[in-house]
């Protein structure tokens, strides 16, 4: 019998490989918060099998929540003994859902917003960050939507740091990389991709540094941005760029680090941030769940936009680990994680939260 949906054509075997062991339940941030089996990988695979068997249809309102309330953190995939690539399966199922007109209204809205606007928030005026854009330079610093419109202080800090290190860089009149849309079941937006590529090329830069690990994954992995590689332009995340620098500051404070899913599990970047942190904070301590086992902050996969209360709830769970290790400072290097954690932190929790670059900038300022 021919498959009705693409997710079955591509992933039937994997869906059937799920042995229902439930290892994924132990690491799923959404399940950890809600305890709802349908919101966990095991439950999703069971439901997708029901769809493949014709018992239920993809076009059902309950399935919108099941398939869209997922941060795509890939902790399930990391833990799965049966080799089921859950995030890829979910993304394909979302494409099928969008195709039949079934999608979470927040994500439908995000797609509509990005057709008209250059950022996911439909904001008209970006901060100018007191710096010119579209100059000729060796590097482009690509901020990303969250850094531009929700974490402008963190962005100012990283730019101040780049200035101190005398890096020749320019900002550009960037628009959303639109990589997020593919994860939600929509195509990326050609005109925005074109705008970003043209602006980058016009600067003459050979390296693009991104503040957002999601943007760097999009630029590096999506064929829509292949032209950058073809023209010899490297794209790297700020933490990769700063790995070998010496900053000349240190703190005695007890510091811990949260691995953003987009930097860690999705890109395998675990050592570089730790090397940098150990230079500036010798009193470094790991949280119980770290590196490939890091618990997701809850913001990814569009969940912060569509299920903000649960998103913040997931962040709150992760922040308990910071208390467990009695850290004074929580560091990360992802504006989405930073934003969600900042919103989730309770007043009684006295630790501070920064991006690594923001923290280094702060230490340097204090020394001045």
């Amino acid at each position: 019998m021919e498959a009705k949906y693409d997710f079955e054509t591509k992933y039937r075997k994997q869906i059937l490989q799920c042995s229902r062991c439930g290892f994924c339940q132990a690491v799923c941030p959404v399940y950890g918060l809600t305890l709802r089996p349908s919101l966990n990988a095991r439950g999703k695979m069971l439901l997708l099998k029901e769809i493949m068997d014709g018992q239920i249809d993809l076009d059902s309102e309950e399935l919108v929540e099941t398939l869209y309330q997922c941060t795509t953190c890939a902790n399930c995939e990391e833990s799965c003994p049966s080799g089921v690539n859950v995030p890829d399966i979910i993304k394909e199922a979302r494409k099928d859902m969008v195709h039949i007109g079934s999608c979470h209204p927040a994500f439908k809205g995000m797609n509509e917003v990005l057709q008209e606007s250059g950022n996911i928030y439909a904001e008209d005026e970006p901060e100018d960050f007191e710096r010119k854009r579209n100059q000729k330079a060796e590097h482009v610093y690509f901020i990303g939507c969250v850094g531009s419109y929700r974490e402008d202080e963190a962005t100012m800090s990283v730019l101040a740091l780049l200035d101190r290190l005398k890096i020749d860089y320019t900002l550009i009149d960037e628009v959303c990389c639109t990589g997020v849309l593919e994860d939600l079941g929509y195509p990326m937006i050609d005109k925005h991709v074109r705008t970003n590529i043209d602006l980058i090329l016009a600067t003459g830069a050979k390296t693009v540094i991104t503040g957002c690990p999601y943007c760097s994954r999009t630029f590096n992995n999506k064929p829509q941005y292949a032209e950058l590689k073809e023209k010899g332009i490297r794209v790297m995340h700020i933490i990769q760029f700063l790995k070998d620098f010496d900053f000349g500051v240190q703190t005695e404070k007890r510091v811990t680090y949260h691995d953003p899913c987009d930097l860690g599990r999705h890109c395998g970047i675990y050592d570089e941030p730790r090397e940098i942190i150990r230079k500036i904070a010798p009193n470094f301590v790991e949280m119980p769940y770290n590196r490939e086992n890091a618990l997701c902050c809850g913001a990814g996969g569009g969940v912060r936009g569509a299920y903000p209360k649960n998103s913040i709830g997931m962040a709150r769970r992760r922040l308990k680990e910071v208390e467990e290790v009695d850290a004074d400072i929580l560091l990360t290097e992802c504006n989405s994680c930073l934003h969600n954690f900042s919103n989730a932190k309770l007043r009684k929790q006295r630790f501070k939260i920064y991006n690594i670059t923001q923290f280094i900038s702060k230490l340097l300022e204090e020394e001045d």
Partner: protein
Amino acid sequence: MDIRGYNMPEDLYYEENHFWIRDEGDTLVMGMDDFAQLLAGEIVYVQLPDEGKELKAGKKFAKIESGKWLGKVYAPVSGELIAVNEELETNPGLINDDCYGKGWMFKIKPSDKGELDNLMRTVEEIDTWLAEEIEKYVTE
């Protein structure tokens, strides 16, 4: 008091960024008005600065977010932040449920209550202002 479909109680001052102020003598209580809470949608986060923070009239001192919107909270008068509604930390939706009551946000000790004269107070002022805001923000 219903003005153009929005609940805007009479005994309050209103600030142009859609925050209300109630005069309780030595203390002012501040919150978000009905127009803004409806436009914002479900509030998911309110920044609650530490008590004792110095406030300057017209200067931003906190942030507030709904799923789709980030708003800035501006001090209506100069003074000191003396209390925050800690319930909002885990239940920011109180602002949507009861924006003039349980959803109050901040208490301020003003340094000059005369600054309240800069805010809107009469039905006529509020009506004119709301008409403009509806035209600006409320899509059909």
